[in-house]
């Protein structure tokens, strides 16, 4: 292999300027810049590109749970007349007092709905201070779903109700480190230089 030219190396590193190059190398560099510069064009994306992106973005559906969460937690202004507000308050109080059995159940499997399957995710990371789960079912949110290390043994778990289907997911360790699940049935390239794990949830799956 040809020996690396130290002066060119130094120039490419930005340690020296083009004027500090030897005459022949300087002329060669100027010629190269000129030739490459001839390809330069003022590139402007056509309007159709942006429109196409935003059209596709609009088509991407947000999962129902996410929309519900947004609806519940996004601050908004609600205009209510004093009379209507009093009526709603009184009606709510009456329901709570007269029908205590209506309190929501704390059983997560009941809340999940009959068609969902509670799926357990386990990740072993004794060194981790936090582990979160994200994937198709969590819109790949960085916040994801928190796992718990209930016994302090480094075995992090969480149960997630999922509809039957095939999902890609990954774990986020200590808030920044994306790690696939070594126990997953399959791993797929995510196209971003990382690997996603795959879970298959069937109606017969048991947790």
């Amino acid at each position: 292999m040809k020996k690396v030219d130290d002066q060119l190396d130094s120039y490419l590193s930005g340690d020296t300027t083009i004027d500090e190059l030897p005459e022949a190398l300087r002329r060669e560099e100027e010629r190269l810049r000129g030739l490459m510069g001839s390809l330069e064009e003022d590139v402007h994306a056509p309007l159709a590109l942006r429109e196409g992106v935003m059209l596709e973005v609009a088509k991407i559906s947000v999962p129902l749970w996410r929309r519900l969460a947004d609806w519940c937690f996004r601050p908004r202004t609600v205009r209510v007349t004093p009379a209507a507000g009093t009526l709603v308050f009184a009606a709510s109080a009456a329901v709570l007092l007269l029908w205590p059995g209506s309190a929501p159940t704390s059983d997560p499997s009941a809340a999940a709905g009959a068609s969902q399957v509670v799926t357990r995710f386990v990740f072993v990371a004794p060194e981790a201070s936090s582990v979160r789960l994200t994937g198709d079912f969590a819109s790949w949110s960085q916040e994801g779903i928190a796992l718990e290390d209930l016994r302090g043994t480094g075995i992090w778990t969480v149960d997630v109700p999922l509809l039957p289907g095939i999902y890609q997911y990954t774990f986020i360790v200590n808030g920044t480190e994306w790690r696939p699940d070594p126990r997953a049935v399959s791993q797929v390239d995510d196209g971003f230089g990382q690997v996603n794990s795959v879970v298959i949830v069937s109606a017969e799956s048991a947790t």
Partner: protein
Amino acid sequence: MTDTSDGALVAQVLSGDRDVFGTLVDRYQDQMLAYVKYMGFGADEACDVVQDAFVRAFRHLGRCGEPDRFAGWLFKIVRNLCRTVGSRNSRRRSESLEQHSSTLASELPGPDERAEANWAKARVRAALDTVPSHQREALVLMYLQGHSVSEVAELTGASRSAIKMRLKRGREALKQELADFFSEGHES
């Protein structure tokens, strides 16, 4: 909105305001499109690649670990797509390049027929297309998009020494292909 940082825009999109994503598109579409075109893609195909990259970026925005460096993250998606589409089309491209190279001397319009600048540009374009893609990418990012070696290294995930080696080899390849332009008597 034009002064808002990428990180703040990404946060707004993630909180549900998807229209804000249009600002990120406006901010980076020209730069990404230029890169894809310089890498040898035709205008229509380049638009498809960039559009696809933005849609993928939106889908996986939660995976953008450093929202303030959205552009670098987006660039990696664009680059991956270029490689995927490029390898898919590699057979077609190599065939057309072989044809292109063999017919270049005889079929390209000469200085007498068209402006010499256009003729030279076509020669450089064809020469760049013959340079291996990693070297071509380094040349494009440095000489056409104005990035330093360190920035190219960060964008491509390669080491600085690897980028310098690619640049040197790319320069040598171009010099060979365009030997007449580098001869002492040639005036550009």
